[in-house]
């Protein structure tokens, strides 16, 4: 089961960054066009991506100025990564006047990776994996489109 890690250094304090993670009006400034989020354990996480793709989940852990963790998936029929099946964790690490923001995405379910043999299926699964932020690993499979 792959785990994706993304980090970025932001020239701002956790106090400045936190509202962008937890307030709907500010969330849509960086992700989504509609954000219905209630950042407390058990609260809803729904962000409409690119105006069309509904991501959905539930907050699991919220530590002010430090951490949000929520389940994550897509509501589209047929999407192998259904809501609740994966977990995203975003943490803030102050370093001087800056903050390192770390995003970890875990838990793509095994049945999301169907054992298909040929190129299209191979890349489709990679797409699905990458779409939710998991790292499908080096692309060494068949298909020959790279």
């Amino acid at each position: 089961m792959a785990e994706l890690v993304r980090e970025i250094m932001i020239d701002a304090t956790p106090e400045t960054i936190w509202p962008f993670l937890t307030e709907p009006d500010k969330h849509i400034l960086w992700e989504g066009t509609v954000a219905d989020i209630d950042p407390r354990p058990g609260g809803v996480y729904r962000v409409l991506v690119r105006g069309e793709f509904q991501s959905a989940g539930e907050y699991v852990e919220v530590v002010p100025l430090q951490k949000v963790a929520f389940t994550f998936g897509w509501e589209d029929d047929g999407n192998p990564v259904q809501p609740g099946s994966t977990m995203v964790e975003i943490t803030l690490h102050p370093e001087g006047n800056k903050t390192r923001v770390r995003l970890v995405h875990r838990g793509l379910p095994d049945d999301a990776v169907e054992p298909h043999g040929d190129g299209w299926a191979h890349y489709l699964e990679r797409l699905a994996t990458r779409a939710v932020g998991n790292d499908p690993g080096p692309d060494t499979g068949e298909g020959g489109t790279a």
Partner: protein
Amino acid sequence: MDAALKALAEPRRREILRLVWVRELPATDIADHFGDVTRPAISQHLSVLKAAGLLSERREGTRRLYQANRDEMQNLRKFLDEYWTSGLERLRDAAEAAQRDKEKR
């Protein structure tokens, strides 16, 4: 791009692309592969895939031949590769702008 992602959300359309990934096929062969789907339904799926740019159509005499459009798939892969990375970059830009506003006050 959005149309392509939506087109992919349907399992049968993914199966169609898989069928024509490495070779061209006429619509009849594609339909034959699906025992449980009507021809009009297959025809509809082909239209959606074509409109999304994922499928190319070529005429040969009276037949229409279909093949997956791999270039468009490359674009999709790129978009999805950048999903979280670009999100965090937007977060950085927004937060840094907010920080500058705070410091001006």
